[in-house]
């Protein structure tokens, strides 16, 4: 027998502390999925009443009204009205209000109360309101709204039992709000909200002293950007240096697993598939997990403290220059580690055109998968001469490749905003939440969810693609005694043969064309593919890279090497990015567009580099 589980929706304005309340009410028992047909997350969790009965709690996207201005807000409206496909209508609502922002949050609350669903109001973050010198009368508010009002502090688990009890009571009694609240007009609702808020306020002092003082420094016209860039520098340092030992350990783990599989599985098709296909392929992506976790730690920290909105504020002017807004800054920042979380983070961009443009340029940010490629080529072809104190030629070239990607992204954004993603300059209207101390438990939960999502993707899409590529490279098998290598003879080798005339004008040989095919799985695979092609048998990647560098220096001309670097600044060689773009844009149109324009740019950039370098006699 299935127990009837009432569906309860948490709903409220952005920054009301809804997610913290959701975490406090459900613990780690959460499920994240997508609403069908839209890229809006459905967060649900198990909720337990005082007597142990279960209920299902959903955390609806924060909204300002039932008149939506974004896909998120449309989902909130459709769910509370019972019109969302694949979702039953909630039996009760918990309206979450920020105590320190009552007049604003009551506007939406009044609209929700008019729906007539059994409702409880959580007067959240009462502690912060008290810190700011604001005292509220919850009983008075309950009388004015006609529903129970429970003061809560989600992060300290205060008021949760009372909230559950009140919810139980209104559901059992099917108690709808009794005050007539139907105000059709937003202005009338606002006047009413201000009136109710003013009667609930017992005493108040100057607003938000704490936050204003912090903003005086963090939003300072000169100090603000300096602090932001210092912070970004620390984040970059952390992503690239703290992650190294963990990434090395994961790599060693994957190698050990491969050896174990080699030792236990009898030689043949299955062993080759497991060792060379699954373990090597999935392993090469899972290696990025430490970087992604460190990056997300900082991003979640910036979000939880309220600093993220300030970073967007500082960056808005620069982003406006290419037709974007400050909201695109975080997704693009994430893309320096990996474009996949970056593209997923574009969900917070309310303007559709802005969001699309950001998704399309995210792969131009130099992700960490390009580093192995850049490192090998630079080490082999660029002399390590010093050109100034602490500045070497090699470092300068690497830096130049990052800058090249950023400039490319800006130019592309400008072009896209006046062509396929045309539209009036979107605004940058954004509420700046007050500063808060982050809570470790919420951070850990967020990190866990991000990591699980990434691993699930590695376990499905990347897994399938890896096997596909492995099949292409392994079959048909080269006959005994043939002078051709397996990679040349395989289906992939034949495709490379077709590709050769296309890439020959930009200085790429057939060997390079062959390395580019498996690199579709992930860019850094190009390194191991080149190593395979040049028949290097090395025990680990470092010696392979070193030996590879020597071979390359002997076989490639400098113009070819430079063209190869330019190619990887643009080439969308990451099947997972394409897959995530398909998911986030709900179709094949934009991922195909992304593939076409980036390969086009890669060809042109590599070509120009090759021809110029050749003409200069390099």
């Amino acid at each position, binding site marked *: 027998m299935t127990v009837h589980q009432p569906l309860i929706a948490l709903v409220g304005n952005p920054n009301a502390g809804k997610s913290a309340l959701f975490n406090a009410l459900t613990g780690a028992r959460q499920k994240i999925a997508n609403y069908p047909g839209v890229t809006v997350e459905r967060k649900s969790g198990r909720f337990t009443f005082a007597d142990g009965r279960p209920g299902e709690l959903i955390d609806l996207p924060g909204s300002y009204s039932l008149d939506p201005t974004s896909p998120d807000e449309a989902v909130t409206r459709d769910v509370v009205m019972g019109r969302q496909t694949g979702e039953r209508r909630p039996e009760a609502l918990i309206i979450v209000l920020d105590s320190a922002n009552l*007049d604003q949050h009551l*506007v939406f609350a009044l609209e929700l109360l008019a729906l007539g669903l059994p409702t409880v109001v959580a007067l959240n973050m009462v502690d912060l309101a008290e810190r700011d010198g604001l005292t509220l009368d919850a009983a008075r508010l309950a009388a004015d709204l006609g529903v129970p009002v429970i003061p809560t502090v989600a992060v300290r688990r205060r008021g949760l039992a009372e909230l559950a009890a009140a919810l139980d009571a209104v559901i059992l009694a099917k108690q709808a709000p009794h005050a007539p609240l139907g105000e059709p007009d937003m202005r009338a609702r606002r006047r009413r909200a201000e009136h109710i808020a003013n009667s609930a306020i017992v005493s108040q002092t100057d607003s938000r002293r704490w936050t204003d003082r912090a*903003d005086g420094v963090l939003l300072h016209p000169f100090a603000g950007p300096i602090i932001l860039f210092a912070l970004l520098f620390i984040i970059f340092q952390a992503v690239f240096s703290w992650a190294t030992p963990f990434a090395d350990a994961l790599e060693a783990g994957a190698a050990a697993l491969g050896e174990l599989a080699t030792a236990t599985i009898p030689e043949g098709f299955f062993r080759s598939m497991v060792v060379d296909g699954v373990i090597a392929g999935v392993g090469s992506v899972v290696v990025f997990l430490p970087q992604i976790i460190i990056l997300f730690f900082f991003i979640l920290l910036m979000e939880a403290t309220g600093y993220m909105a300030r970073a967007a504020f500082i960056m808005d002017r*620069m982003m406006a220059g290419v037709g974007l807004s400050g909201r695109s800054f975080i997704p693009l920042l994430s893309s320096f580690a990996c474009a996949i979380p970056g593209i997923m983070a574009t969900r917070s961009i309310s303007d559709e055109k802005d969001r699309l443009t950001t998704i399309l340029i995210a792969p131009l940010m130099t992700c960490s998968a390009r580093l192995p490629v850049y490192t090998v080529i630079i080490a082999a072809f660029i002399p390590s001469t010093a050109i100034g104190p602490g500045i070497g030629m090699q470092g300068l070239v690497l830096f130049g490749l990052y800058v090249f990607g950023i400039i490319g992204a800006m130019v592309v954004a400008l072009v896209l905003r006046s062509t396929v993603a045309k539209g009036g300059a979107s605004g940058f209207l954004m509420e700046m939440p007050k500063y808060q101390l982050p809570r470790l438990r919420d951070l850990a939960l967020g990190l866990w969810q991000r990591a699980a999502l990434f691993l699930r993707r590695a376990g499905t899409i990347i897994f399938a693609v890896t096997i596909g590529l492995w099949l292409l490279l392994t079959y048909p098998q080269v006959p005994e005694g043939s002078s051709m290598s397996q990679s040349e003879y395989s289906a992939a080798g034949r495709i490379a043969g077709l590709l050769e005339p296309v890439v020959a004008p930009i200085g790429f040989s057939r060997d390079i064309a062959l390395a580019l095919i498996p690199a579709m799985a992930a860019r850094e695979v190009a390194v191991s593919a080149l190593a395979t092609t040049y028949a290097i048998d090395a025990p680990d990647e470092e010696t392979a890279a070193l030996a590879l560098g020597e071979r390359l220096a002997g076989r490639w001309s400098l113009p070819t090497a430079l063209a190869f670097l330019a190619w990887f600044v643009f080439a969308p060689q990451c099947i997972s990015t394409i897959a995530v773009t398909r998911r986030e844009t709900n179709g094949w149109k934009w991922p195909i567009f992304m593939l076409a324009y980036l390969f086009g740019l890669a060809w042109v950039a590599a070509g120009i580099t090759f021809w110029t370098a050749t003409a200069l006699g390099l």
Partner: protein
Amino acid sequence: MLLDQLPTGQRAEISAIDWSVLPADEGKRLRALGIDEGASVTIRHRGIFFGRDPIALSIGRMTVAIRRVHARAITLRAPDAAPETIA
């Protein structure tokens, strides 16, 4: 006076908003945040040295970032004419 000319730290009441120059969704979001005729606002911060854009307004107990181009669609009653009691 237009909103983007209001000196930082001074409070003023919004007398008119030219909705026609704002994109439809932007107008809707402004109203949802309570930035509407009759509301009183204070500029708390201005953007970085380069353009001093966007600006951060306080309205009630909330701070909202808005671009100057949209702030120029908002007309204010002269600051000294706004009664001190408006909250």
